[in-house]
């Protein structure tokens, strides 16, 4: 075995055993473990959330079409080993003797649903069971239909020209629409019976849904193939494509998980960078001695490359094991609320963690290791403290460089040394961020923002330390000493301070965003969230329903009148094509319409959670123009929801023409509104003032929060009004709550991981300054400083550093949170003063504790031992 191999192994073995490599090892181990567990956890949780949420659409992906799709698409899905089911939806009248009811007919194939469960009660008094499709000749219906048509299990109904037997009551339909304006109760029919019903005729308004599910890779491959083939009358979507509270929660959760992972990686990378500098610094004496004894540069290079490689290999392996255990612990912790399909375990986290470990180990260690290898043997004579100020300069071979470099101004030397070795870690970090976010702009913003903030923090940190010194001079001895120490090591402390600040800032950021997200979700779903909607209330029924609500003290929204109408023209320009509302592209021949009838309402006041973004609401118009009520009433006005306005390029002052029944209505746009679609309340694209629609026949809608003890009363009350439909959104709300709870648990676990990474940065940074402190403490001890004075001064120094870092971190956090809330999470920006104090106190406490504990051993050493160690 070559000598350099022997020596390298020997050094590594002893150093590992003696714990001398603990910090660098821990940094790499945690970087790998954090990345492994974060990416593994995120992807598993995302997948699991999506899997669980796909029950809302009964599939992983859906191809919706207004006509049957080509068989080749179905054949291709079979080739991709996907499961598929078919569903045809239409509105039709259902008859039972003399009674009839407009219903939502769902024609399903035997494999429906692919995700989620269709629960059917087949006998009265029995619990519902999981089912797929009714047998031929039978139907399953929603309970409200039985009530309205006065039917029971086993009775017959007429669907089209067929008579079908009611064989079950559908108590849970996985993809029951979130929309409140479905035409009636669901009637589930077997797809093999549909031809006999003769419901499908030329010109029938039908919605064909082709449901697909399968392994992620298979479904993604199919998606890649099928998407370009989707035409204007078709739509390809998944659970996240839909505008719903759930999709929004999922998207935000996914963004949060990605952000947390990215910040975790930044922290882990900083820890590796700090630790590798310390590694280099600690090994300089060894290299100098080796060189003085005659070891060549080549020998040292090989020795340390092997040493570093083995160390990294060991640490990365350990990190993978720890990461795997952490991941399992995390998944176990959330398993109650979020069952994870471990069969879907992928190698992605493993690969990402190894790549991250290698990038960190190479990019962040190149400069320190290069400077280590180039340590001058002259250091054995001159001492290491002098040479350490020249990290990165090889000077042994040149006659004057050592002295000149050590004495030149720091700034000049730093600028001179700024080269590819410094660019490498920055580039590596950038590459890592891109790898995780897949977003170049976001990564660049994060990186550049981070660098600018770091530079600003460096300057502010120096100011704080200067201020601290003048304050310290008026304080007691220990404070005075602590502040003097801060000032004396201003350069090193500034770097340390920036590291502390960044670590605390990122921790605060993750904490604030977590709480902000969860609060935001919970605000959308307070305890008294509407759990029932009443629709199809006639004008005559409004009074009695209102009275019932009041008598029973039920919390309810007001009654919104609804008139169905179609937007036909904008400024005399006819909307030539009417396709689904999700198609956003403008046609060459003109603007596309909404593709369906809209629910139009009118009111005098702006509804809750609606914000006017352009123009004025009519009540405001009235007051500002000092018009009378009559004047306002005379001129029709409409307020348009902003996304629709944007899609149809509707501007203030545009004249919209609506087709309502056989009549047309012309009305100018006087305001554009932002609507919170996540609020579980009736929301409308178009709101008119009362003049325009009052003459049209309208039905009314209201949302209620009905306590369980009032539920029976409401049901009994509604029996007398069979035309009123009650929509139960309890299941949806509880499912949504469950998703939010699951995401909350997941992001709390991720927070813990990020805190680990942040703490490591702090520990590594404190450890990096330990040798310098050791020397100082030895000198002060020798000069007769009491142990209590030294202990207090060390504690105060770290407390001050932590408090300054916490203060700066709080400010930086607010800035970052503002950007994230407004630009990434689409939330309302807000200040978080409660976290400012937390930043300062936790910063001071955390840094103070870590610093004090790290110095504890030194502070309790006898003077003789200290002096001997520092000799």
């Amino acid at each position, binding site marked *: 075995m070559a000598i350099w191999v022997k020596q390298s192994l020997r050094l590594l073995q002893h150093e590992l055993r003696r714990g001398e490599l603990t910090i660098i090892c821990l940094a790499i181990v945690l970087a790998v473990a954090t990345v492994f567990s974060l990416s593994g956890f995120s992807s598993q949780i995302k997948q699991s959330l999506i899997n669980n949420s796909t029950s809302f659409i009964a599939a992983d992906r859906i191809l919706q079409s207004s006509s049957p799709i080509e068989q080749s698409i179905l054949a291709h899905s079979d080739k991709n080993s996907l499961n598929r089911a078919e569903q045809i939806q239409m509105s039709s009248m259902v008859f039972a003797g003399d009674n009839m009811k407009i219903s939502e007919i769902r024609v399903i194939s035997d494999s429906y649903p692919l995700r989620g469960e269709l629960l059917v009660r087949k006998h009265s008094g029995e619990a519902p069971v999981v089912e797929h499709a009714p047998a031929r000749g039978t139907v399953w219906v929603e309970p409200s239909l039985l009530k309205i048509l006065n039917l029971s299990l086993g009775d017959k109904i007429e669907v089209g020209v067929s008579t079908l037997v009611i064989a079950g009551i559908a108590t849970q339909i996985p993809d029951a629409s979130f929309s409140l304006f479905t035409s009636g109760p669901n009637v589930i029919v077997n797809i093999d019976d549909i031809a006999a019903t003769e419901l499908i005729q030329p010109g029938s308004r039908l919605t064909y849904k082709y449901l697909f599910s399968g392994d992620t890779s298979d479904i993604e491959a199919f998606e890649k193939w099928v998407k370009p083939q989707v035409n204007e009358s078709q739509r390809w979507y998944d659970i996240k494509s839909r505008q719903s509270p759930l999709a929004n929660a999922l998207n935000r959760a996914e963004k949060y998980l990605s952000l947390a992972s990215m910040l975790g990686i930044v922290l882990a990378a900083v820890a590796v960078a700090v630790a590798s500098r310390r590694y280099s610094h600690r090994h300089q004496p060894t290299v100098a001695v080796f060189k003085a004894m005659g070891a060549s540069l080549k020998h040292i290079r090989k020795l340390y490359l092997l040493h570093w490689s083995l160390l990294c290999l060991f640490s990365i392996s350990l990190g993978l094991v720890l990461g795997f255990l952490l991941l399992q612990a995390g998944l176990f912790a959330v398993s109650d609320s979020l069952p994870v399909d471990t069969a879907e375990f992928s190698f992605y986290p493993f690969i990402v963690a190894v790549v991250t470990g290698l990038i960190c180990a190479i990019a962040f260690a190149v400069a320190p290791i290069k400077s280590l290898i180039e340590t001058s043997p002259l250091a054995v004579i001159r001492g290491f403290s002098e040479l350490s100020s020249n990290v990165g300069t090889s000077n042994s071979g040149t*006659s004057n460089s050592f002295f000149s470099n050590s004495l030149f101004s720091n700034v000049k030397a730093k600028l001179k040394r700024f080269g590819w070795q410094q660019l490498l870690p920055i580039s590596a970090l950038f590459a890592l961020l891109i790898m995780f976010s897949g977003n170049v702009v976001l990564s660049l913003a994060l990186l550049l923002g981070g660098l600018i903030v770091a530079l600003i923090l460096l300057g502010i940190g120096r100011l704080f330390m200067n201020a601290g010194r003048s304050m310290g001079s008026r304080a007691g001895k220990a404070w005075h000493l602590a502040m003097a120490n801060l000032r004396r090591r201003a350069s090193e402390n500034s770097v340390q301070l920036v590291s502390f600040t960044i670590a605390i800032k990122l921790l605060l950021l993750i904490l604030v965003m977590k709480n902000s997200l969860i609060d935001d979700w919970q605000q959308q779903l307070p305890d008294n969230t509407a759990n029932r909607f009443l629709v199809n209330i006639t004008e005559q029924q409004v009074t009695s329903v209102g009275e019932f609500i009041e008598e029973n003290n039920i919390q309810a929204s007001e009654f919104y009148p609804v008139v169905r109408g179609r937007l036909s023209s904008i400024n005399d320009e006819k909307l030539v094509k009417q396709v689904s509302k999700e198609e956003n592209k403008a046609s060459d021949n003109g603007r596309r319409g909404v593709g369906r009838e809209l629910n139009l309402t009118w009111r005098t006041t702006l509804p809750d959670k609606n914000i006017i973004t352009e123009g004025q609401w009519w009540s405001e118009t009235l007051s500002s123009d000092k018009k009378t009520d009559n004047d306002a009433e005379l001129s029709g006005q409409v307020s348009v929801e902003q996304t629709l306005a944007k899609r149809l390029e509707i501007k203030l002052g545009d004249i919209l023409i609506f087709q309502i029944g056989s009549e047309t209505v012309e009305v100018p746009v006087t305001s554009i509104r932002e609507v919170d679609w996540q609020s579980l309340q009736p929301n409308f694209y178009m709101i008119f003032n009362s003049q325009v629609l009052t003459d049209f026949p309208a039905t009314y809608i209201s949302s209620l929060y009905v306590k369980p003890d009032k539920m029976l009363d409401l049901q009994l009350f509604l029996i007398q009004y069979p035309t009123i439909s009650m929509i139960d959104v309890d299941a949806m709300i509880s499912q949504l709550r469950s998703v939010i709870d699951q995401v909350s648990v997941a992001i709390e676990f991720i927070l813990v991981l990020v805190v680990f990474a942040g703490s490591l940065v702090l520990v590594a940074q404190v450890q990096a300054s330990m040798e310098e402190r050791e020397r100082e403490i030895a000198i002060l001890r020798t000069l007769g400083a009491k142990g209590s004075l030294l202990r207090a001064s060390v504690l105060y120094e770290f407390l001050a550093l932590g408090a300054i870092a916490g203060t700066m971190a709080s400010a930086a956090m607010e800035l970052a949170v503002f950007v994230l809330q407004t630009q990434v999470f689409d939330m309302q920006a807000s200040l978080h003063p409660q976290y400012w104090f937390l930043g300062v106190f936790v910063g001071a406490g955390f840094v103070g504790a870590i610093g004090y504990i790290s110095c504890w051993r030194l502070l309790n050493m006898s003077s003789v031992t200290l002096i001997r160690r520092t000799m």
Partner: protein
Amino acid sequence: MLTVGLIVEDPKAKSIHSKLLEINRANKAFFIMNLNSENILKVRALTKSVKLEEKTLDLLQDINLDVNAGDTLAIVGSSGSGKTTLLSILAGLDLPTTGEVYLKKHSLHQCNEEQRSEIRANHVGFIFQQFLLVNSLTALENVMLPAELANMDNAEQLAKDLLTQVDLGDRLDHYPSQLSGGEQQRVGIARAFISKPDILFADEPTGNLDSKTGRHVADLLFDLNKQFGTTLVLVTHDLKLAARCQRQVIMDSGCLAEGKVEDIVEGTVDVIVEGIVEDTVKDQVETPAETLAENPAGTLAGTKVASEG
């Protein structure tokens, strides 16, 4: 009793610096005359200067020196006189600004770092004031290090033998932190001799030890040096230790002059640095007379100077 001519003879007329330069020039003839007798180290017109911003600082000026194989040479001088700078150049750790340095026919001043490393591995041994053992290696492994770098086959056995010789045979597996200062320096001495260097450079080898331990370590150093027949170049400001060498040279303000410890102490050499003598006086006072009597080589009065001159 020590009587010392501590003060420069004519402080008004000449500086110590210029006096040393004169002495150095006077001795040049002698140095040249001795070139042919097993010369292991030769220094000619060596200077070392560094630039401090706009100013040039001369650390060494016109140094000429010859050391023959087997010589023991002490370089004495106060702190900042340039003796450590000189040592680092003589040992090939640093390069001169001008001048020539030959070590066993190798012109060090013309060698690059790699070549000088090879020369150090094959010809040079070191003992440091700070011991400079590798903390993460055991005593045995520290001693083996130079032998391994010189590709010697029986490094481990040699290291064990040497450690036994310095009374550390039972501490082979101990780490430096588990050894006292004296023990660490004994490991350092064993390490210095293992590769049987042609020349050994010792930088204040007892500077970090108390006087008793220092004497013990010095005894070991000189005993092993005698046993191995190594040339020893010792940098010290301890006149007692310097006196144990055959030759002494004095450094002051970057200049070198040949001298003898007796002359320094008795004031016959009129250039002397107060610090050196003060240290010596202090040490003399602390050293029991009996110890001094038992070990005449350790006393100034009994120093037997065997300079070639």
